């Protein structure tokens, strides 16, 4: 299967053809995919070199002239390194852009911690007005990229990953989707962790919600699910553990509730290796998830074969 990032340049190249407002800003990373787009639209495909402050600042300037910039590099260099540019050049100026990241949590484990940014969504959470899409499949990535570019002058973050679920689900760029219904708790699976969560909760009497848009947080969707399944909530996020715990707490502020936030650990592992090894190290494989979810919800179920 191709990756979400394989879809990125072809989709945005089509959007460049269709919409004269769309522009692409790169800092070397990802430029090869845009070679043809650069030939067709030399003024709307800009590679600023290895200059990430300029990457965001220039995108903001383009937005102020009326363009819709799509800005891409690895999450470490898109959100962390030029964070003040996100805060001031976009937020404070009242300008919008679509940020498309790759390799955020541990997509390239052999690359080490310099190329990991599991805190990207948590960092954006300190700012006002960002929409955050976390697709779980290349087809969903394509739909959410189109949705993001079409979102007027909004500030939108699209988090692409090499991790993926086996099958795509319909996404609307707003709401959580109910994929399983139960009565003893709600598990929210964000993007590419859905398959592991479904495997982990097989035979458990829980509702599973699938989230591909996490900001704004679908407060109404979570509340609806808890009406039938109770107010014990587990969040499973493919980025820093607990990133959405506050949002879930706020959604249920007027009722007694419990929230467990699972995701990527804060501690630096100092390990290389493969993605699956990091999934397991952070307790995000199906077996660990079943243990942690089952323990928190105190639900009994048949352990699925192979879990």
């Amino acid at each position: 299967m191709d990756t979400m990032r394989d879809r990125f340049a072809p989709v945005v190249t089509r959007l460049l053809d269709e919409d004269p407002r769309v522009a692409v800003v790169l800092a070397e990373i990802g430029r090869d995919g845009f070679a043809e787009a650069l030939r067709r639209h030399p003024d709307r495909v800009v590679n600023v070199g290895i200059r990430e402050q300029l990457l965001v600042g220039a995108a903001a300037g383009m937005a102020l002239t009326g363009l819709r910039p799509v800005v891409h590099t690895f999450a470490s260099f898109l959100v962390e390194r030029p964070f003040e540019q996100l805060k001031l050049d976009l937020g404070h100026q009242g300008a919008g852009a679509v940020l498309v990241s790759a390799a955020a949590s541990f997509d390239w484990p052999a690359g080490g911690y310099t190329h990991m940014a599991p805190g990207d969504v948590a960092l954006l959470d300190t700012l006002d007005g960002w929409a955050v899409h976390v697709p779980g499949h290349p087809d969903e990535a394509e739909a959410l990229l189109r949705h993001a570019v079409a979102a007027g002058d909004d500030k939108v973050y699209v988090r692409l990953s090499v991790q993926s679920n086996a099958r795509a689900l319909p996404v609307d760029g707003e709401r959580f989707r109910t994929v399983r219904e139960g009565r003893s708790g709600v598990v929210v699976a964000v993007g590419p962790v859905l398959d592991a969560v479904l495997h982990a909760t097989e035979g458990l009497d829980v509702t599973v919600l699938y989230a591909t848009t996490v900001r704004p947080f679908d407060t109404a969707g979570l509340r609806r699910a808890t009406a039938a399944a109770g107010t014990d909530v587990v969040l499973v996020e493919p980025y820093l553990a607990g990133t959405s715990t506050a949002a879930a707490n706020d959604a249920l502020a007027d009722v007694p509730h419990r929230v467990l936030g699972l995701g990527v650990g804060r501690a630096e592992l100092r390990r290389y290796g493969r993605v699956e090894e990091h999934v397991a190290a952070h307790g995000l494989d199906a077996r660990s998830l079943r243990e942690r979810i089952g323990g928190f919800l105190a639900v009994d179920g048949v352990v699925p074969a192979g879990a």
Partner: protein
Amino acid sequence: MTIFEEHTRPHGYADLPGLMALMTGDEKHGPAATSTLDVLWVLYDRVLRVGPERMDDPGRDRFLLSKGHGPMAYYAVLAAKGFLPVDWLPGFGSYDSPLGHHPDRLLVPGAEIGSGSLGHGLPIAVGTALGLRAQGLDEPRVWTLIGDAELDEGSNHEAIAFAGPAGLERLHTVVVDNSSASHARPGGIAARFEAAGWSALTVDGRDHEALYAAFTAPHPGRPHMVVARVEPKNA
């Protein structure tokens, strides 16, 4: 437009100290407060094709004040040129005033960017020049004003090093040099721009004719920068 009719009468350069005094409460201003004053006046009076009535015109020139510290001279010039009412000036820095100690583009009529944190104007100006070029708007010129110490910020150097080779001819930077950088070498400011392929001139930042000549000097195919030298900040 009644607001402008009520508050705007023709103001000249000689009125600027009085307008600044509405903010500072003092007719006399030291070199630090006025380091940008002559540069701003010459730009708004003779160079920039802008005006209060043109702020929605995509073809207007863009002036991005990057050095947002000490914006009294900027507000005074904007008031003198009718962008904002003179009677806003006395409220400078107060809770209900749109005029803060660093400007906010969403509050100040005529301000193309909000600034304060140093090193943001030039990268945004690069993007503005790119955005105008991408839309076939070849006429508008983009200007940004930075301070000599502000040039310490590395983000400027990302922008300088990109804009020269990219041939952003419509991009202009004026560096107001009041010798406030702690670590500097003579001629170092212009040299760094020139090394990146910019056209560069250094002039007396109080001499209006020299400033005008430098601001309007031709620079085909290259971005242009002017060092405007004024009295040392700590002299």
